[in-house]
């Protein structure tokens, strides 16, 4: 499982993360919240091995991330970036099929997995379309299908890191995509997602990490983290926290 110990990261001589201790748990969806520039994307980059920490270490299964061989790591750890720039006219199923590149599971099995991943990301109807003709939200769903295909069917050994997976989605798809991610985590995959919408985070995440100034401000269940005090301290926003009338999770309303 993915663990960070005493993680500190510098970018261009600036300290963007310090003293981060974090463990992703199998089957759990961990939401990362924080204002712009809090270090959320740097955290994700450090956890994925993209950024080398100045201090501390990230371990996958107890082994430092840098010691993993590329394809071996890619079969265990997938990352959905914020805005992938693809300028070539691949068809949707080809893009999703790239998720199978680290595997040698055979063309038929890959095609089956691509179909399932597309269905999970509610993108089956996009099959056959050129990627360049898709809208921003459709592209986001295609890339989600790609990272799901990379880890398919998911399991307790695997880690999925999502950088704002719902940023370009309409309200219905924000919910359906997070439901799909939850269902995927249900097979054992540990998922970390950077989110901006506090209420989406409250509804779908098992644990929340509140990040500000490169440090952990709070880490715990939505009920423990989504309180007026910490939210005011981190976002500078006055909020009321109520209970969702049907589901019971915290419901955050700006004052």
């Amino acid at each position, binding site marked *: 499982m993915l663990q960070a110990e005493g993680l500190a990261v510098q970018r261009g001589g600036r300290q963007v993360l310090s003293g981060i201790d974090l463990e992703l748990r199998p089957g759990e969806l961990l939401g990362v919240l924080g204002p712009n520039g809090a270090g959320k994307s740097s955290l994700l980059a450090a956890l*994925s*091995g*993209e950024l080398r920490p100045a201090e501390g270490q990230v371990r996958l299964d107890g082994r430092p991330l840098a010691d993993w*061989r*590329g*394809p*071996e*790591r*890619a*079969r265990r*750890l*997938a*990352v959905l*970036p914020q805005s*992938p*720039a*693809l*300028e*070539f*006219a*691949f*068809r949707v199923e*080809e*893009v999703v099929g*790239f*998720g199978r*590149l*680290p595997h040698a599971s055979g063309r038929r099995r890959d095609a089956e997995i691509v179909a399932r991943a597309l269905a999970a990301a509610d993108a089956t109807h996009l099959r*056959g379309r*050129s990627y360049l003709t898709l809208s921003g939200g459709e592209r986001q769903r295609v890339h989600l299908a790609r990272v799901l295909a*990379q880890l398919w069917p998911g399991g307790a050994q695997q880690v999925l890191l999502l950088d704002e997976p719902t940023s370009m989605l309409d309200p219905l798809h924000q919910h359906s995509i997070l439901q799909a991610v939850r269902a995927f985590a249900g097979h054992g995959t540990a998922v970390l997602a950077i989110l901006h919408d506090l209420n989406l985070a409250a509804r779908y995440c098992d644990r929340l990490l509140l990040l500000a100034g490169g440090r952990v401000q709070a880490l715990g269940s939505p009920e423990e983290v989504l309180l007026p005090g910490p939210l005011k301290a981190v976002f500078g926003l006055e909020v009321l926290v109520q209970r969702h009338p049907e589901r019971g999770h915290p419901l955050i309303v700006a004052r």
Partner: protein
Amino acid sequence: MSAFVRRPRVLLIALSLLLLLAFWLSLALGPLRLPLVDSLLALLRLAGVPLSGAGLEQAELIVGQIRLPRALLGLAVGSVLALSGVAMQALFRNPLADPGLIGVSSGAALGAALAIVGGSLLDAGAPPEASPTLLSASAFAGGLVVTALVYRLGRRDGQTRVATMLLAGLALSALAGAAIGLFGYLADDAALRRLTFWNLGSLSGASYARLWPLLLAALGVALWLPRRAGALNALLLGESEARHLGFEVERLKRELVLCTALGVGAAVAAAGLVGFVGLLVPHLLRLLCGPDHRLLLPAAMLAGASLLLFADLLARLLLAPAELPLGIVTALLGAPFFLWLLRREPL
């Protein structure tokens, strides 16, 4: 949508047949037209099959000494330029990238100018045609040196930044252009004429001696690049994305630059500057078969070779018995086609 996406075999077979046709015509046509059958029989005689017939000895001489090395040169130059175009477009993740971007063409041109003009300045008595081997070697070395510089300038903190590399390539190409201009200014008329023709590209200097280094480079590129088709696909998503898919992106970029420098360097050293092939062929093929490198690479290789052979046929037939420089033909064919592509749909 691309016509051949679902029928890759049909496209590859069609392109192979096209290449065979281009190769055959390249053996048969020229200032002295051989009957099509004779050109094949001459090839068989060259291979050691004891055939005899009217005019076959002359045909064997023409094919063996002139047209076969020329056709092989065209085949190698065309396929290497097209493959390198695909490689550079993947490296820069831009369908408009050209092998020249990393400085290999301008470096080779500088090396050639140095050999042509420097040679004639140092040894005014020698005929300017004296040293094709020195010219090729100098062009090849020039391409490698400038590319190495561009690559070095693009590196920072153990990472190669392709945007920096692109700008460094532009700057060094401008610098090389200035140096070539200076050589042109210093050159006598014979050297200047030779420099001009070299810059327009031609297969007319084909000989087996010039062919082998290029054939080796072409073979290396043609064998290595398709093995990286999956990695090239992933690279189009972005460097981080390719890393997350398990590819060693820094090594891949280094290999792509090296492969292009060797391939294009050898092609330019053997045939001078032949424009537009590396840009156009991958483009055209993407329209036909989509951007998947597993199909695009072999298809571009076949199509690049065919295009170059047909262009060379035009170059030797249009003004026969005189010859047009090859670069003029590829630009005349390529530029309007490219404009048509630009107008047809946003890239």
